């Protein structure tokens, strides 16, 4: 055929295929029938009897099944039909083995889904860029290595020099409470407000969802001149209807009314990772928003974080040099004539530019580490799941030799049989993928909730990452299809070597060597041990954290947090207010005691002051700062903190009387050398003048986080510190369940000071749970997946062992016929498999030791070589393995020697 003719033929075939109905199997069968009938007629004509002719015609035809099979295979045009048929068949086979199917699909779905969820989360927290234009060109300008902030005049100065920066903006973020919309009552909860310069949104290059953003001309001209606000999409969704509905509405904050002029897109919530902005307000409205610190804008106080966008083509080094020169000049101009401003100081000025493309988050690492640990755990489980499913598929395949042989003898080609196994694998893979999607969505939602429940709140809204999902699916599919290869290869081998005789009846003789068999068991056991040990360690960490002695009563205390700063309440006025509140609350039914303090329990950021103790020399590198707390009389009794020496404050310890303090045990031991520090005197930087006398020593109380070792704290009577008081918190001790009193306490405080924003009233136990949210997360994940790993490993061992038993039944039968007992058989099987388990345990032990060391930072009061965790892990796995091996081994003893021999 010439090339042209060939092309024509191909085109014609294609055309025919599309237009004409392809020939079906049934049509072919009819033709065969017709042939046989015609042949029979011919034979009759040649002298055969009617009955004999039919049989002879059929005999002469040959193998009908083969012919049909061959025809079927030449139908390349019906490949789709073929595949559908294979899939349907595979589905039928899987339905007949529901246990295998369920385990395979579930375990892979779980592994894939969990991996995707956790990676998506880690990606969003650690790696994702801000959703703005060209995030690579954004930098955070840090003018002084001691502080992250600068002042407004510096920002203006930088703006004027346009040589390296396309835009320069600044932001100050803070929480404000009691923001009211016009149609809702004041919301006591805090909102995150970002005070920004006019070019802030321009710097990021985002477009508003509705309305407009700020501009330099309108919003950065007149101080307090333009009360407008841009709301975030989340805020808009919570308080208004559609985006355009929000525009024109007003918010009132601290008595000032702000008009909503724009809505930010959902993808933009400022650049502070984990602290999404709710409202943006022009910087020039600062005095209205922060009445406690008016007129910060023109001042040279450092309170603004400066951001900039590099001009294209400008290198960071060059820009930093230019920025340093600008800032040096600014300081020069500012301190001209100031004798303290020396040339050394000028030389030390150094401006650094930090990448902003991933946002600003000093605490990014904290949330990351537990996530990474969780990710490793989930990754291992996926590995175990894949290995398990592969092993199970191999076992299934090996036990289907007879089926393969029959198919081959019926005329199916080896390729056909191989395709069937692939179809099974593909079916499992597809089902697992679909289930995996569900798992990953659920997983991401759950992770979001966990991240938002801790102390550092990560309010993220993320969708499962498609690329990660695709990757994990690809990995799983690859594994499954590779195991589809092994039975397929067996099929091909059987086909070429001929199947008659050897395998049809004695199928078991082709004892399938699963060379990976023992390796699989060892690997699974090792990995399972690592996971189970880890789970044990994390669980014990959580228990230790939760049940440690805090130094104060955590069962019966409520803590009420307020924001007096926001309404400019401070000093003596604040103290009087809180004393009144304490009196009022004490009178409530169910309240045993109440008191106030300037610093709550479990507060991370709190005041410290430089302290000098006569007779004590500070060591090198030691901090001179000690934490302090202003408390009302009765505080310690309310909190359940016992005094180990001296007395509590009384109503006599007021402004004007001798200055007194109560110190914690550790502080006493540290600075005074003894717990009994009564009568000793010392001074702090704040009260230059009268030294302070220690009149009591109290037990240590945990502060900051549950992991802090000890806390040195000094307590002052609130009346003696009125001048410096800016914060107060109420603590209330309840007779019964503290949760029941929450509403009453809130009402009582509100009644006394209606303008005081009360941000939270809650039992201390609730707050404490927030501080260990991450530990709970890790314990949960490791426990859950550790159990899964154990289950999978046990199942794998069970499958392997029972298959081995089946494969060796003839051998067992012979043994028993020769006089061996059932026990000896069981022992033999046990010994072989348990030795593999033992090897796995040994390897797993080494790996677990390494792993524990790696996560030591996550553990609390549990050493990386904690014997208990390891012992539990080993015991659990041994028990599971033993069970997994015993069951099939026992079945082996029920083998009837006579039966098996007969098969031979």
């Amino acid at each position, binding site marked *: *055929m010439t090339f042209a003719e060939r092309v024509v*033929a191909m085109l014609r075939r294609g055309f025919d295929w599309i237009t004409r109905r392809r*020939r079906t199997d049934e049509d072919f069968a009819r*033709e065969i029938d017709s042939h046989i009938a*015609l042949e029979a007629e011919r034979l009759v004509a040649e002298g055969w009897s009617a009955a004999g002719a039919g049989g002879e015609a059929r005999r002469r035809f040959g*193998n009908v099944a083969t012919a049909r099979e*061959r025809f079927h295979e*030449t139908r390349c045009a019906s490949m789709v039909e073929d595949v559908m048929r294979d899939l349907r068949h595979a589905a039928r086979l899987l339905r007949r083995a529901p246990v295998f199917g369920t385990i395979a699909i579930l375990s892979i779905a779980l592994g894939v889904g969990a991996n995707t969820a956790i990676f998506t989360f880690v990606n969003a927290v650690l790696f994702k860029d801000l959703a703005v234009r060209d995030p690579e060109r954004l930098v955070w300008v840090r003018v002084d290595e001691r502080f992250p902030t600068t002042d407004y005049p510096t920002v203006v100065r930088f703006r004027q020099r346009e040589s390296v920066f396309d835009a320069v903006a600044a932001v100050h973020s803070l929480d404000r409470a009691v923001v009211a919309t016009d149609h809702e009552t004041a919301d006591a909860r805090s909102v995150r407000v970002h005070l920004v310069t006019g070019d802030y949104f321009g710097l990021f290059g985002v477009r508003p969802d509705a309305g407009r953003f700020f501009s330099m001309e309108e919003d950065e001209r007149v101080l307090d001149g333009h009360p407008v606000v841009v709301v975030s999409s989340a805020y808009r969704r919570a308080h208004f209807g559609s985006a355009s509905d929000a525009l024109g509405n007003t918010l009132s904050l601290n008595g000032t009314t702000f008009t909503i002029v724009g809505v930010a897109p959902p993808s933009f919530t400022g650049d502070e990772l984990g602290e999404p902005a709710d409202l943006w307000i022009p910087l020039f409205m600062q005095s209205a928003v922060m009445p406690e610190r008016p007129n910060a804008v023109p001042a040279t106080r450092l309170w603004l974080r400066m951001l900039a966008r590099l001009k294209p083509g400008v290198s960071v080094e060059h820009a930093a040099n230019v920025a340093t020169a600008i800032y040096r000049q600014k300081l020069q101009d500012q301190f001209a004539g100031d004798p303290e401003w020396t040339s050394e100081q000028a030389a030390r000025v150094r401006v650094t530019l930090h990448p902003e493309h991933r946002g600003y988050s000093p605490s990014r690492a904290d949330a990351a580490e537990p996530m990474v640990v969780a990710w490793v755990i989930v990754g291992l489980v996926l590995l175990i799941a894949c290995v398990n499913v592969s092993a199970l598929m191999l076992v299934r395949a090996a036990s289907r030799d007879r089926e393969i042989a029959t198919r081959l003898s019926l005329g199916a080609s080896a390729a056909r049989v191989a395709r069937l196994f692939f179809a099974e694998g593909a079916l499992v893979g597809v089902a697992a993928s679909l289930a995996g999607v569900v798992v990953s969505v659920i997983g991401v939602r759950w992770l979001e909730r966990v991240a938002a429940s801790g102390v550092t709140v990560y309010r993220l809204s993320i969708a499962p990452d498609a690329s990660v999902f695709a990757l994990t699916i690809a990995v799983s599919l690859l594994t499954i299809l590779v195991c589809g290869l092994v039975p397929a290869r067996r099929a091909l081998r059987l086909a070429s070597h001929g199947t008659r005789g050897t395998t049809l009846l004695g199928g078991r003789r082709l004892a399938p060597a699963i060379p990976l068999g023992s390796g699989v068991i060892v690997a699974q056991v090792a990995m399972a041990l690592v996971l189970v040990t880890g789970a044990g360690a994390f669980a014990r960490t959580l228990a230790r954290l939760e049940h440690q002695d805090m130094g104060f009563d955590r069962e019966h205390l409520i803590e009420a947090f307020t924001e007096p700063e926001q309404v400019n309440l401070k000093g003596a006025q604040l103290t009087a207010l809180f004393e009144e509140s304490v009196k009022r609350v004490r009178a409530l039914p169910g309240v045993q005691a109440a008191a106030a303090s300037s610093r709550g329990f479990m507060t991370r950021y709190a005041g410290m002051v430089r302290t000098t103790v006569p007779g004590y020399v500070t060591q090198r590198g030691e901090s001179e700062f000690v934490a302090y707390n202003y408390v009302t009389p009765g505080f310690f009794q309310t909190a359940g903190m016992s005094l180990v020496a001296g007395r509590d404050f009384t109503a006599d310890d007021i402004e004007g009387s001798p200055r007194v303090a109560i110190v914690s045990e550790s502080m006493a031991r540290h600075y005074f050398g003894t717990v009994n520090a009564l009568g000793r005197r010392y001074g702090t930087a704040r009260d230059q003048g009268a030294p302070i006398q220690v009149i009591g020593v109290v037990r240590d109380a945990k502060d900051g986080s549950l992991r802090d070792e000890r806390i040195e704290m000094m307590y002052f009577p609130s009346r003696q510190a009125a001048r410096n008081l800016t914060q107060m918190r109420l603590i209330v001790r309840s007779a019964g369940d503290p949760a029941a009193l929450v509403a009453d306490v809130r009402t009582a405080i509100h009644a006394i000071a209606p303008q005081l924003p009360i941000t939270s009233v809650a039992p201390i136990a609730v707050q404490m749970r927030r501080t260990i949210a991450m530990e709970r997360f890790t314990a949960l994940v490791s426990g859950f997946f550790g159990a899964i790993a154990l289950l999978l490993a046990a199942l794998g061992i069970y499958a392997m062992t029972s298959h081995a038993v089946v494969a060796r039944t003839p051998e067992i039968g012979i043994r028993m016929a020769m006089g061996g007992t059932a026990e000896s058989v069981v022992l033999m099987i046990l010994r072989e498999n348990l030795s593999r388990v033992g090897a796995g345990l040994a390897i797993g032990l080494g790996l677990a030791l390494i792993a524990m060391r790696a996560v030591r930072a996550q553990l609390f009061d549990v050493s990386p070589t904690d014997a208990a965790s390891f012992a539990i892990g080993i015991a659990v796995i041994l028990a599971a393995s033993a069970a997994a091996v015993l069951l099939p081994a026992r079945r082996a003893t029920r083998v009837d020697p006579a039966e098996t021999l007969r098969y031979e």
Partner: protein
Amino acid sequence: MTTQERIAILQGTLDLLILRTLAGAGQEHGQGIARAIQDVSNQTLLVEHSSLYPALQRLEDRGWVRAEWGTSSNNRRARFYALTALGRKQLIRESDQWWRFADAIALVLGPRTAR
């Protein structure tokens, strides 16, 4: 010769025989073709009937024969095959090839000797 090669040759030969038979018969059904080859070759070539049909299907796929259901002389339903123009061309080509092949072998074997 391995199994694969043997099958290939047989397939090619069978195709040729079918095409030639159809060229002579004009239109014929499968059973008829099988019988024709047997008879014309003096029972030397016994075609396995079951392998005839996949061959016919192949020829049909390649567009060398055309097929449709009809009624036989005894009023029986049968699928009748006929050569297409393309098939006729293919027949000429393959016959030439076969004769050239046969001549070449004859040259190598030399003149026929008495057994």
